[in-house]
């Protein structure tokens, strides 16, 4: 296990250094995107429409934050990760089209994302579910918010972050997926557990 501290924009070369189980902290520009923002961004791409921000080399955070407005400034109150599997249907195209390098969420992602990450050079960083204040503290400012018509949780919040983490690299750009490994392990352990408890499968 190694610890890395990266700053956006990140290059493919940098990302390829990371292996599953490594710990990563990212600084620079991060944006939130859940189901609706992923969908809209891909629609924009299809129609040749420019996105509000060049996403290349940036960090995507699967998160619907609690944000409050104080005077003219947005302040992030709590910003824990949401379940990433919902974005599995979009993420491979998202990585391919926009060259994002780090995707942050909880619960892991599937085969399609793992393959896209290997092909185009991106990683999945698992952030601790529920650790909303740890996340909010690393967010230094809200640079802007786009697509607020989607609602507070689904909008694209563009954030300036400093050493956001710790992120456990759970999918690397070499085809390794820690969640899938754990799942395989659990299946193997099932028999041992059943045996110990005197259960028939």
């Amino acid at each position: 296990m190694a610890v890395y501290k990266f700053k956006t924009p990140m290059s493919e070369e940098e990302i390829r250094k990371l292996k599953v189980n490594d710990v990563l902290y990212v600084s620079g520009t991060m944006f939130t995107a859940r189901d609706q923002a992923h969908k809209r961004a891909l629609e924009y791409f299809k129609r040749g429409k420019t996105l509000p921000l060049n996403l290349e080399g940036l960090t995507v955070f699967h998160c619907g934050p609690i944000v409050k407005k104080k005077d003219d400034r947005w302040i992030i109150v709590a910003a824990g990760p949401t379940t990433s599997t919902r974005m599995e249907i979009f993420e491979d195209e998202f990585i391919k089209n926009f060259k994002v390098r780090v995707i942050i969420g909880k619960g892991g992602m599937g085969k399609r994302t793992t393959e896209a990450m290997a092909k185009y050079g991106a990683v999945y960083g698992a952030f601790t579910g529920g650790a909303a204040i740890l996340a909010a503290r690393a967010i230094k400012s809200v640079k802007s918010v786009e697509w607020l018509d989607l609602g507070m949780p689904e909008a694209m919040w563009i954030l300036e972050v400093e050493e956001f983490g710790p992120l456990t690299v759970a999918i690397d750009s070499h085809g390794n997926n820690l969640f899938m490994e754990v799942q395989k392990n659990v299946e193997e352990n099932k028999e041992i557990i059943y045996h110990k408890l005197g259960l028939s499968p």
Partner: protein
Amino acid sequence: MDPNLGFPTTIRTKHKVRVISASIDHKLIKKRGTLVGTSNIVENVAFNLIKQAVIYLPEDVKQALRKACAEETSEAGKTQLKAILDNIDLAEKYQAPICQDTGTIIFYIKAGAKAKDLDKIEEALMKATKRATVEVPIRPNAVNPFTQKNSGDNTGRLIPWINWEIVPGEDIEMTVLPKGGGAENVCVMGMLVPGEGITGVKKFVVDAVMKAGAKPCPPNILGVGIGGGSDIAMKIAKKALLRPLNVPNPDPEMAKLEKEILEAVNMTGIGPMGLGGKTTVLSVNIDYAYRHPASYPAAVAFNCWASRRATARINADETVEYLIHKVE
């Protein structure tokens, strides 16, 4: 960490009850026995309980997480546990909810049969929940299942849910359990085969944990309810989540079963946040009811690592004691 941080309103003595109520109205509190006065105390105490629960984890949960962090051998799992402990400290320091999902608000009320104004408690709990939504703040989590509209204040038909118990005496004991959605989504209830007995329960629980995987934000606390009926099994399972993790089951046979299931589920390898490790579950809390000869209901209520709960007792003389979040 000072557990009293930011809670000048948490009180134990009658004198300080006035402190807590200062922002409301002194006079109302003094009207012992009047409807307005008592329900106001209930509202204030319920508000404090929600606030305490979402910001501070009970000491027994923190201890279990610290122990798990010290003993976890998986690197990824340890990283997660460290982040959890850091987050707990930061939430206390910055007086902010531990997790952005502040859950569905569930109350457990032990009402003394001779306590006054019991009919006003429900309204007071509603008011406290609405106030907490704005003032703590907690996330609005009450959605109409037909229109999908969020009420915006954590209340709605039957929500917050209140579990009532009538006990002897004049005191009112109130507990709040803010129940997060991720762990709630993997709760299961099954009508097992009576002939399989406890063996069937063991399989049911282990299978539920393996199926849940990373989803309920492990390490989890499991409430297991056995017997009664389909609804009763889940009710006692969820209530079992309130038992402190350092309090063993008073029934030695059940304590043994809890230990056996705990060891088994921690052999799955799911680990903290599903990233692998030996800490998948912190505690298995079992309770039971007698069953129908033909039925064997069993239920597993999952709670996430942010296993939040807070309890207070309002004594007959209107003094208030906070029983989980000790403050001096």
